[in-house]
């Protein structure tokens, strides 16, 4: 027998075996555990976000399975590391969708991972609950839902706070030139001018730039009453130092990237404000996470918990049929959550009611700011 023939027969065998496995394998999952995926950054700069989410996810899964699972079936989570990067996102989603054939996905947390990965979930019609905040992600399709407020709302909230509460009418903007920063810049300036305020100057900066003296010099000559700085932590620290050196003595207000130790632990950032989605994180919940998983609950932990809870209750009602599951999630009105008082979705999959708060850096930490 020639080698070509042997190879040909082997190929046919492989196809038959794989085909049979796919057919019967599918049948198996109807009684076996229900798998959901979690695409999180577990390595790299943003690994702490992944770890925070994981604590909440594990607690929810444990509680659900202890109470008998979903209609008798256990819930199982497959974790994939998206490393907060675009290629990481597609790799994680490809594995979750094709190899693990999950019924639903929680994550990504990072917009760069989410942007290329979400179309895959939509193609497979697998409902996905994202935390990533870039506007437009939910427009990818009707299977994408967001359990964290979109940047559109954050920029709008910041504009309203600056104009109405702080009473500043002339504001300059220095923003990070990435999806997040440009999103905030756009929504802030649109809302601020709509309210009647003036944007005296708007300067973009490379995400990694730390010499921001010349943009700040320009901003200073435009005489703003406040500078809005949706920048990452390193750019924020640079602005904190350099604006003071240049004698730009007006209030600074940034976005949710500032709620990290690398920003708040620098003395120069003392007194800088920022906006952030207000997520409840009760002591009772923290204690439950600690008891069940041994980790300390962080900012995003309640979102991991609520994400799984929402999927689980939809699975209980609708089963694993993708279309029924999507409809059940879209109709969610979840009021027993640990993150927000009420999670329900707009037509496009964004959160209906989002709450934000203003925080301020004080003594190396961030704290809630009330006037």
């Amino acid at each position, binding site marked *: 027998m020639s080698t070509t023939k042997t190879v040909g027969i082997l190929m046919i065998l492989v196809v038959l075996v794989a085909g049979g496995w796919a057919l019967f394998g599918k049948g198996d999952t109807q009684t076996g555990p229900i798998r959901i995926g979690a695409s999180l950054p577990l390595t790299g700069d943003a690994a702490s976000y992944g770890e925070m989410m994981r604590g909440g996810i594990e607690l929810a899964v444990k509680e659900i399975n202890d109470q008998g699972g979903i209609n008798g079936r256990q819930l199982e989570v497959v974790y994939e590391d998206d490393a907060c990067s675009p290629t990481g996102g597609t790799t994680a989603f490809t594995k979750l969708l094709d190899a693990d054939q999950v019924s639903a996905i929680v994550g990504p947390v990072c917009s760069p991972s989410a942007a290329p990965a979400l179309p895959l979930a939509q193609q497979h019609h697998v409902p996905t609950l994202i935390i990533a905040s870039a506007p437009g992600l939910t427009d990818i399709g009707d299977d994408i839902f967001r359990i964290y407020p979109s940047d559109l709302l954050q920029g709008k909230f910041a504009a309203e706070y600056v104009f109405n509460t702080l009473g500043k009418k002339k504001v300059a903007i220095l923003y990070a030139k990435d999806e997040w920063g440009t999103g905030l810049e756009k929504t802030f300036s649109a809302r601020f001018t709509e309210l009647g305020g003036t944007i005296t100057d708007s300067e973009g900066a490379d995400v990694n730039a*730390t010499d921001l*003296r010349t*943009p700040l010099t*320009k901003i*200073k000559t435009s005489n703003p009453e406040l500078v809005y700085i949706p920048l990452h932590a390193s750019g924020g*620290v*640079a602005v904190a130092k350099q604006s003071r050196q240049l004698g730009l003595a007006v209030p600074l207000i940034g976005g949710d990237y500032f709620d990290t130790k*690398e920003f708040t632990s620098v003395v*120069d950032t003392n007194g800088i404000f920022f906006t952030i989605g207000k997520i409840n994180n009760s002591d009772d919940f923290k204690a439950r996470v600690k008891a069940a998983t041994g980790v300390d609950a962080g900012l995003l932990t309640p979102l991991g918990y609520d994400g799984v809870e929402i999927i689980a209750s939809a699975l209980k009602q609708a089963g694993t049929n993708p279309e029924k599951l999507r409809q059940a999630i879209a109709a969610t009105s979840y009021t027993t959550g640990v993150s927000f008082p009420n999670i329900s979705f707009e037509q496009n999959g964004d959160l209906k009611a989002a709450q934000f708060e203003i925080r301020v850096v004080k003594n190396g930490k961030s704290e809630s700011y009330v006037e």
Partner: protein
Amino acid sequence: MDIVVQILLNAVIAGAIYSLLALGFNLIYSTARFFDLGYGALTAVGGYSVFFLYKILGLPLIPSIIFGMIMAGILGWGVSELVYRPLRARKASNTVLLVAALGVLTVIQAGIAILFTSQFQTLSRYVAEQQTYTILGGVITQTQVLILAAGLIIMVLLGVVLKYTRVGKAVRAVADDEEVATIVGINAQRIMGGVFFVGSMIGGLAGISVGFDTGIQPTMGLALLLKGVIAAIIGGIGNVWGGVIGAFVLALVENLGAWQFSGEWKDAIAFLVLILFLLFRPKGILGK
């Protein structure tokens, strides 16, 4: 505040750091004749050494800085002896050396990230404590004046040593032709090692300066290296004075561009200047 004065001062501040980078890079490039990407990571080594000694251990400032420079120097020397020297002995092409240098850059960056995490860290104390000077309505801080002075002193020292001393002549001989220099009795390996040590020390100081001026990150090296290279090419690669002139020209063009257009154009402008020089004046402002 007069905006033009402040923009010029901003250019001087950025130029001071670029000139340190260009001085170290020029020294290594003109002697070893290959594009040492690993030099970039040594800026981070200098910065993180000071971070460890000055901020974590709480040692005094001056010894921390000196030790940080020595650390960068030793590592630069070690890399040259352990990686580049065997490759050169094997007559490896410049492409091989470039790839090896890329490996060095990546390994050092990863090592720093493991030891100190990838977080952005600052070296300086509270900014309000810092002495600032006002020149014609523009502001410059004491740290920045010191960085500028250090750059100018190193430039003069290097220029004089390379031109007038025996060691300097030996360095230039090795730079011209390593084999001929060896034949006339110069220990080319030792000279090469020394050049890597001193060049890396200067690179380390550049990293420390950046740390005091803004802050440090493990991956800070590549962007800094590229600015140093552009400055060196504008000024005339291998030319001590040219590198410094190139650094200030680059900083001036960048900051004027950021002022007239917008901040995000800074890097694009820097590389556009590089391309223009490569096309129309490849030997730089001063040539060699």
